[in-house]
């Protein structure tokens, strides 16, 4: 569990964090998103005990990050936004060094290194120098190093930066797998689709403070439909037969707004959550429309991000 209470941090006159609060439950896969300079990396560094907060408190698994920093380091795995590597070490040496740095003793040390090599897919490259690895392999190596001491909490700062699409997919699958094993994962990212795919909740941060979306919430649930009155859901159907008949039937549903028609596909927006999409589908079926495909998507993270931060951009609405 991660508890952040009114954290403040400044660098000289620049305020990096101000009165920021958050709670991440045990076993969550939690995302943090915000514009550049919002304070994401600073927050993660505070949780990782690299920097003390100037005000407020933060606890990881019940341990205060300032007063009990060594206890916190024993339970976290930290991946910085730009991880460094010892280029002149071999892959296995690199993992063995950090296994020693986390005070792992035999046989646990050997098991941890072997597991890390397997997890990163670098068993065959264990005798290669780190500088010989590709960028994606280096990223996998650093993530594997983060998991050596079986930490229950992972703090990942922009873990997908610089990865190709396939590597990003592999990373997402790995994080989901780790989360299923019970790890609490707290990560920041600019790649909204990745967060949307894997996180249960996402917090918004801007100018070092909790930022609210258009619904007034600073923490967005990505698994539950929105209950707010201004939420909208996008629906799409592919029909057999007359598309215009389907469009006329759709217009009879309260609040349905036609977005586009293309080929045999009809796209509409409906007020409310995903339950409205289900009701609209039933309405079309009742009207005699023959449907071969249906998709319904609630307000996406990208849309919510845009609503939350567009007003803060230059020229945006204040």
């Amino acid at each position, binding site marked *: 569990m991660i508890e952040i209470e009114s954290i403040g941090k400044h*660098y000289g006159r620049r305020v990096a964090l101000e009165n920021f609060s958050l709670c991440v439950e045990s076993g969550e896969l939690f995302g943090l998103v915000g514009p550049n300079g919002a304070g994401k990396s600073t927050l993660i*560094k505070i949780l*990782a*005990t*690299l*920097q003390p907060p100037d005000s407020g408190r933060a606890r990881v698994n019940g341990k205060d990050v300032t007063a009990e920093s*060594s206890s916190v*380091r*024993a339970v*976290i795995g*930290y991946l*910085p936004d*730009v*991880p*460094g*590597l*010892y*280029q*002149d*070490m071999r892959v296995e*040496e690199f993992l063995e*060094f*950090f296994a*020693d*740095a*986390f*005070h792992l003793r035999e046989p646990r040390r050997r098991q941890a290194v072997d597991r890390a090599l397997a997890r990163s897919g670098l068993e065959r490259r264990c005798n290669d120098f780190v500088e010989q690895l590709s960028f994606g392999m280096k990223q996998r190596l*650093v993530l594997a*190093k983060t998991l050596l001491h079986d930490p229950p909490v992972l703090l990942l700062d922009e873990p997908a930066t610089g990865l190709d699409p396939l590597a990003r997919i592999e990373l997402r699958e790995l994080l989901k797998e780790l989360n299923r094993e019970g790890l609490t994962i707290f990560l920041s990212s600019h790649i909204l689709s990745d967060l949307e795919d894997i996180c249960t909740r996402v917090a918004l941060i801007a100018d070092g403070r909790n930022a609210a979306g258009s619904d007034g919430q600073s923490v967005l649930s990505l698994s539950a439909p929105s209950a707010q009155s201004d939420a909208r859901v996008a629906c799409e159907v592919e029909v057999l037969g007359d598309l215009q008949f389907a469009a006329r039937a759709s217009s009879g549903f309260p609040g349905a707004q036609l977005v586009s028609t293309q080929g045999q596909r009809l796209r509409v927006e409906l007020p409310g959550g995903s339950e409205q999409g289900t009701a609209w589908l039933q309405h079309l079926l009742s009207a005699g429309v023959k449907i071969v495909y249906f998709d319904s998507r609630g307000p996406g993270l990208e849309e919510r991000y845009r609503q939350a931060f567009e007003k803060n951009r230059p020229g945006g609405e204040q």
Partner: protein
Amino acid sequence: MNPMIRKELRQRMRERRSWILPSIYIGVLGAVVAMAYFFTLSESPWQRGGDIQGAQIGVTVFITVVFAQLSLLLLLAPVFSAGSLTIEKEQRTLPMLLTSLLSPADIWYGKFVSALLFLTLLLVSALPVLSLAFSLGGVGPAEVVRATAMTLLVLASISALGLYFSSIFRRSVHSTAVTYAAVIALTAITFIIFTMMESHWQTKQAQITRPAGVSAPEIPRYYSIPLYLNPFYAVASALMHTRHKFPDWLICTLVFLFLGLAAAFLAFRNIRRRGESG
């Protein structure tokens, strides 16, 4: 074993300078000693065919080796210490070290020991050259032990100082430059200050009229204070015979110990505080 020591030694041995520098060091030291040997022979009143005092040549070779060695190692010590922590900042590996279970003291100790071990390797590699002094006579094991011990203490302090500057700066070039400046201050500036103070005292004494047969008093000991920070004087004092209750070598030992420990303590604080911000 501290994992930092193993890592540092492994990385150091893989660097090209791990064999280039010792080679240059031995070459230069050998050349200096050879020059001193032949210079002493040619300047000796007992020229060719005469009765050459081997012990005097042995002492000359010994003194030459000790101070040439110290000079070279003072040039090399900043190379191995001043970049130790800045390299971790430059290659962005320091956050990973600081979020492990290694304490700032563990990190410092590993870097310090690996730097000092390498300098000790160089010191030991000069033993064959030093054995020439033994073979000529005039030098005993006690002198060798005292000179080596004091040299090691000086190098340890300089290494600690280099690590302290490395903990302050973000870039190796800056920390190395400042460490060299500190070495110059300790070697040259202290000597210049002492020379100026001594000159001032001599001038004052010359102005005093004394009765016939009364010579000027010895220069007070406190005028030597700047020299207690001078590495060359520290090693020289280790070779002097003195009847003082607090001999100069003891004072130099305490001064360099204090310098090293203070630098170490300040570096511990900086490693944690400046870990991210540099």
